[in-house]
Each structure stands twice: as C-alpha cells, then as structure tokens.
C-alpha cells in the first residue's frame, strides 16, 4: 500500500490514537471556526476503539464493530489526517520537526497521548506461547480465538476480573491468581471484595489469593502455572498485572517524568516544554480530591484530559480539575462500582477511615467515612 503523503506543516500533531488523542482532536475541531491542520499518529493500525468493552467482545456479548468508535472515514469527515501504523521514535522538540515514513513534518503544537502498556511481571516463562496480555484490540482477538480449555488469569485488577468473567462465560475453566489477600485490591475493601469473590466462585471461577506466581511452565507452549503452593494446569495465561504510562518517547525528548512514572504536566496539561501538552494514561496528574499526584489510567479521565489538552494547545486556558477514580464492572450480571478511595488506601496514608455498609433492597453500598464524615 502506498502511504498517503503528509502535509509539510500541521498546527497540531497528536501522538496516540486512543480516547485521549481523539478527544483532543475533536476539541480542536469544535473550538475554532477556521480549519486547523491536525494529524493523529499511532503505532497501531486501527481506528479508535474502546478497550473497556473487550471483555464483552471476548465472550461474544458484543461484536467487533461495536468496539470501534470511529471508522477511517470519520477522521476524513472531521478533517483530521492520520498516520496509523507508524511508530514515532524521535521528535525534535526545539525545531518542532519529526520524521514520519521518511517525510519531514513540521508542527506548531504537539500533544503526547501515548497511553499505557501492560506491566510484565518478573515471572519465568512469560515469553511462552499461550501467554497473553490484554491491552490492544489485537490481544482481544488473539484471546478470543484461542482453542484452550483451561485458563489462568494472573492479577485481579479490573482487567483481570473482566477477562476471567469473559473466559468463564465462554465455557473455559478459569483460575485467578492474586498476590494480595483480596480481589480488586485497589478498588474494594475486604467486605465488598468478599461479595465479588462469592459471586465469581458461585459461577465456577477458581480463586487463589495470597499466592505469588513463580513460573509459567511448558516446553514452547504453556502447560501450567506454578505458584508457591500450587500448580495449576492450563493452556493459556493472561497476565493482567497492571498498566504503566508509556513514556519512552517523551523521556527521549527530555520531557520531565514524575516520581510515579508518568509525564509531569501543569494544571493546563502543559509539559515542561512550551507548546507541548500531554494527556491520558501517559501522564500523572493531581487527584481531584487528594490534591496529590496520581496515575489514573482510566477512560473518563483520559477523555476529559484529551479535551482540555486539545483546547489549551490552541490557545485556550482551561484548567484541569483532576482525576477521579470511578470503575464499573459487570460480573455475571452483578454490577459493581467503585468511586473514590478505599478505606484501606486511606489507612495506609495514616487516615482513620472505615468502610460503613448500607444495604438497600438488592444493593449493597459501602461508604468510606472518617470521623463520622463521608470522605
């Protein structure tokens, strides 16, 4: 395929075709009357899709076209150029130039929306065939169309729970292995986690808590997962051990990276370079309630940040109020939501929080209180 030639100059170049990058592009398009030239670059050769519904796709609740939120022609209609399937390895921030498929592209403003990538835990044998991550749509397709009967999911964050539920719904034997003493350790306190635990066990998912995976065994293909106390036979393993901001390119360009590993931005989402903004999973930003820097790695925050970075890149001055923790999970028709911080999280910061349970008809609600006040 002959690649389309790019223009020599773009008012704004956005690196990353996730929700953050796309919200930025849309905001720019809506903010000004005169047409600005916008280019979106992504290493993945796919239009915008939603990773949040990949679980539904794997268990066939949702078909592939529902996952895509845009078609390639939608970009054209919005007047946005895109370079999909192109990885950027260097950007000259001082001269505002980059090389794109052996074309030189100049830009006025740059937005980093490079997202995140899965953490590879230090487990022996994680290169074997049958070991998957779940981040991109390609991962989802690979997981969906494997012929395995037994699966192990390592990690019980939201992605781990979603994959486990999806694979179980497909009829596989599923075991979740979690290092910490409860499921969804960052989102739920012990009592709430127990509810989820019971519901998953009721639907036939095996759960091993307090267990560290030591190695993934098998010749070239996985045959089992070994923990300190158990050996679980399986044909596939999904490593859902968390995501990290993807900042390799930003680091190379001397953009400041924070203590948590995300790009540092001010309240207008500008980096330490003028005319360079960042948004989405790749940044660390202030928590709306904690006022401390946090990594968010959530869809709605990425969207909002993208919008704000888009506006500010073209001269607006919209402040970003900060990230909020909101996660919704559907486990076999049991709907679960987590908002804000857990009591355990606050306790670890020496705050005297406790989770207070309220039961109303069919729903259970835990409010996190400190000295009798809702926090």
């Amino acid at each position, binding site marked *: 395929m002959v690649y389309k030639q790019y223009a020599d100059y773009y008012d704004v170049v956005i690196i990353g075709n996730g929700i953050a990058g796309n919200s930025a592009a849309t905001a720019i398009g809506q903010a000004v009357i005169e047409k600005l030239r916008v280019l979106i670059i992504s290493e993945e050769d796919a239009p915008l899709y939603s990773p949040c519904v990949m679980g539904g796709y794997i268990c066939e609740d*949702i078909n592939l076209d*529902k996952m895509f*939120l845009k078609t390639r022609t939608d970009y054209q209609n919005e007047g946005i150029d895109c370079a999909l399937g192109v990885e950027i390895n260097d950007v000259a921030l001082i001269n505002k130039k980059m090389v794109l498929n052996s074309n030189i592209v100049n830009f006025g403003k740059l937005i980093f929306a490079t997202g995140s990538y899965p953490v590879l835990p230090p487990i022996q044998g994680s290169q074997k065939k049958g070991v998957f991550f779940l981040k991109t749509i390609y991962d989802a397709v690979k997981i969906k169309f494997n012929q395995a009967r037994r699966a192990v999911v390592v990690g019980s964050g939201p992605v781990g729970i979603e994959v486990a539920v999806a694979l179980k719904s497909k009829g596989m034997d599923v075991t979740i292995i979690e290092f910490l003493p409860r499921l969804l350790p960052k989102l739920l306190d012990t009592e709430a986690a127990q509810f989820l635990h019971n519901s998953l066990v009721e639907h036939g998912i095996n759960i091993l808590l307090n267990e560290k995976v030591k190695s993934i065994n098998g010749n070239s293909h996985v045959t089992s997962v070994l923990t300190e106390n158990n050996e679980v036979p399986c044909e596939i393993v999904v490593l859902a051990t968390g995501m990290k901001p993807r900042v390799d390119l930003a680091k190379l360009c001397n953009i400041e990276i924070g203590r948590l590993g995300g790009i540092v931005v001010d309240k207008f989402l500008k980096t330490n370079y003028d005319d360079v903004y960042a948004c989405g999973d790749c940044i660390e930003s202030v928590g709306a309630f904690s006022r401390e820097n946090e990594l968010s790695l959530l869809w*709605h925050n990425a969207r909002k940040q993208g919008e704000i970075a888009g506006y500010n890149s073209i001269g607006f001055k919209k402040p970003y109020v900060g990230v909020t923790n909101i996660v919704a999970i559907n486990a076999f028709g049991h709907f679960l939501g987590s908002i804000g911080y857990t009591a355990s999280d606050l306790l670890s910061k020496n705050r005297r929080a406790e989770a207070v349970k309220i039961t109303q008809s069919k729903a259970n609600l835990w409010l996190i209180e400190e000295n009798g006040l809702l926090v």
Partner: protein
Amino acid sequence: MAFKILSINAELCTGCRACELVCSLSKYDACNPRKSAISIMKVEAYGIDLPVVCQHCDSPLCRDVCPVNALTRNTDTGAINLLSDVCIGCRACTLVCPYGAIKLDPDTGKTIKCDLCGGDPKCVKFCETGTLIYEKPFITTYQRQTQYLKKVEHTLLSGREID
C-alpha cells in the same frame, strides 16, 4: 448561543406524575414510570415531591465514563442524547450521575435518559402546575426573580409609610 434549559420549581410540584406518564408514552408507547426519563421522587412522610431529570451538564460525567461514546451532545438542543443502539447497558452512567437522573430500561437493560424531546419536551407541555419550565436561561432567571419578589413584596412594602 444559549440553549433553552429545562428548569424545575419543586415548590409547585404536586406529584401528579403526568410528566412520567407522557414521557414513557411518547418514548416507549407505555404508561410506565419505570420507563420514563423524568422521575418524581416522593417522600410521603414529609409530603415532598421532587422531579428528577437530566440537567444536561456542561461537563457531563456520564458522557465521560461511557465506554462506547453512546452519549453525545446534540448541537441543536444542547441535550446530552443517548444513541440507544450503541449503548451496551454497562451502567457506568447510572453509577456516576449526581442526580440519579439516568435509569435503566427494565426490559432491555439499556440506559433511559432525557433528550429534551428534540427541543419540545412533552413533560413540560403536560405539566399543569408550572413546575417544569423550558425556556432560555435569561427568561428562567427573570421568572425566578419574579417569584422571589412575590415572596418578599409584602415585607418590602410594609416597611414603607403609605397612607
């Protein structure tokens, strides 16, 4: 350009629930309050009737959390509209709405929410008491000020010496 807004004067609401019925009738061909985008919250013990309906927030959290972009702003009415064939019924929007103004359709599991009937809200048409008003913000403000004036009119005048 300012859009018309749907405002609520809860003091006037008698809880007749005509709005719920006409809403579900026009959207789902059924007189079923569970399928209405507007709800009347009743607290019988105190005689409170509070209409609850989408406020079409400036920065809507429901739209932000929607994983499939099923909630979008209509540029003609300013409403946050639901594309119901895109909605997957994940309930994230119902979780975050600060007003509890988003419901689930008990039959399809999908979101039910107000779309201002494309700029001509039926609930307002059928509201006999004037609780629901659909006007440009400056008119709504003026109406509010007038109501306020009515309340304090007496006090204001009684301070004067008129013979």
